[in-house]
């Protein structure tokens, strides 16, 4: 007889979708929490490198756009954390715990957000390549077997459309600019290209990533995603008159596959596991400051929620009381 776990696996592999209240194997739940928690926290931590450039953006329109993008990233973090919270309910873990995890090093965030963004071109290249890479991953996840994740990603991808155009717009302006601007762009591409090769994960996927494929939480391998990325971005970067810092980068005309130089897997891996990148400590410091600095507001909200609940118990209108 087929076990409950086998029946579940057969269900998701036939393309059926799973909802939060459905029965699911612990392994499936834990993989989802790991994936969505990391995704949500990466959205939040992704706001920090760009935040550094809001004050220094070259025009008011660029400043508005960068600010709008940061608001989107924090919003995406909120939406994704809600999903991770719903899944974490059996473990009795809520928002406060999931946010504490990043400060205590219990959840990782994307390698790219540990790095320096020393020039305006870096702000543009983050929009161009980091958002570009994230969009490829997120478009793949639209087909996830976990329906709440798929639905949320629909909203997120729709908003990322502006991030993509904004990043390209900054990069195109620099590529069409003065020699100094072109040199600045070249410098940023040199810094971000190896990080983007790491971004999609090792060539041979780890055990949990392979299980995510089995469960259709994700639908493509790391290498398939990386190939999609190179295929989309390498020709565009080269067209801009910017060189890619990888002499081994070459497309096999027969298979269409790109060969590339391996990033420093050990170094990047150490960075994400130990928060040991050049900017990890500063950005986590800002996150801690925001988290601690606003604790009073979260506590006041809890008090207010208790007050409303008590009024509702006594039959007094528990409606919205205005701002």
């Amino acid at each position, binding site marked *: 007889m087929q076990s409950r776990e086998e029946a579940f696996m057969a269900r998701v592999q036939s*393309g059926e*979708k799973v*909802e939060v209240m459905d029965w699911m194997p612990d392994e499936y739940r834990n993989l989802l929490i790991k994936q969505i928690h990391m995704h949500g926290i990466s959205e939040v931590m992704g706001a920090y490198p760009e935040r550094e450039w809001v004050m220094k953006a070259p025009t008011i*329109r660029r400043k*508005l*756009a960068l600010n*709008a993008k940061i608001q989107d990233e924090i919003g995406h973090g909120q939406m994704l954390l809600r999903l991770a919270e719903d899944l974490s309910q059996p473990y009795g873990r809520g928002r406060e715990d999931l946010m504490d995890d990043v400060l205590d090093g219990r959840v990782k965030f994307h390698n790219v957000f540990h790095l320096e963004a020393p020039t305006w071109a870096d702000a543009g290249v983050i929009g161009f390549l980091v958002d570009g890479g994230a*969009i*490829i991953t997120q*478009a*793949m996840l*639209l*087909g996830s077997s976990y*329906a709440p994740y*798929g*639905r949320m990603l*629909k909203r997120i*991808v*729709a908003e*990322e*459309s*502006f991030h*993509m*155009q*904004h990043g*390209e*717009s900054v990069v*195109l*302006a620099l*590529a*069409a600019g003065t020699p100094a601007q072109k040199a600045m762009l070249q410098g940023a591409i040199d810094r971000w290209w190896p990080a983007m090769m790491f971004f999609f994960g090792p060539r041979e996927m780890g055990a949990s990533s392979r299980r995510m494929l089995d469960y259709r939480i994700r*639908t*493509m391998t790391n290498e*398939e995603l990386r190939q*999609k990325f190179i295929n*989309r971005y390498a*020709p*565009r970067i080269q*067209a*801009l*008159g910017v060189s890619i810092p990888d002499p081994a980068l070459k497309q096999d005309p027969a298979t269409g596959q790109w060969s590339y130089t391996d990033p420093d897997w050990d170094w990047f891996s150490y960075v994400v596991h130990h928060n040991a990148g050049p900017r990890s400590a500063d950005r986590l410091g800002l996150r801690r400051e925001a988290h601690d600095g606003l604790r009073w507001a979260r506590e006041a909200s809890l008090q207010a929620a208790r007050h409303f609940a008590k009024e509702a118990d006594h039959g007094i209108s528990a*409606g*919205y009381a*205005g*701002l």
Partner: protein
Amino acid sequence: MEFPRDTPVYEVFAQREALSFPTHVGSVRASSPEMALQMAREAYFRREAAYDVWVVPESAITRAREYPEVLPVAPEEKTYRLPGGYDNAPLWKRFKAEAQTIEQVAEEMAAKKEGRS
């Protein structure tokens, strides 16, 4: 306490398929949430199937229209926040590269997925 003359109102939301969002379709009166689901089935789903149906007590809903200060309105110009606010195509053309849209990326990724199964 005076005995109410009518059963409570439940607002009905329906989700057509797994990846669509629940949409408000109307309301029903019923004695309990379970009965409200039965009533909703009779009133709104005599022909079409649904992936899921939600019933929510009307009293649990707070409407932003009653609090205009929180109603999202967009009086100022926000093109800087929209993909249409950026016309990158002519510059990509100048560099002899193709402009791309997020819809094309989503299509490519979905096509690949179907190819696998």
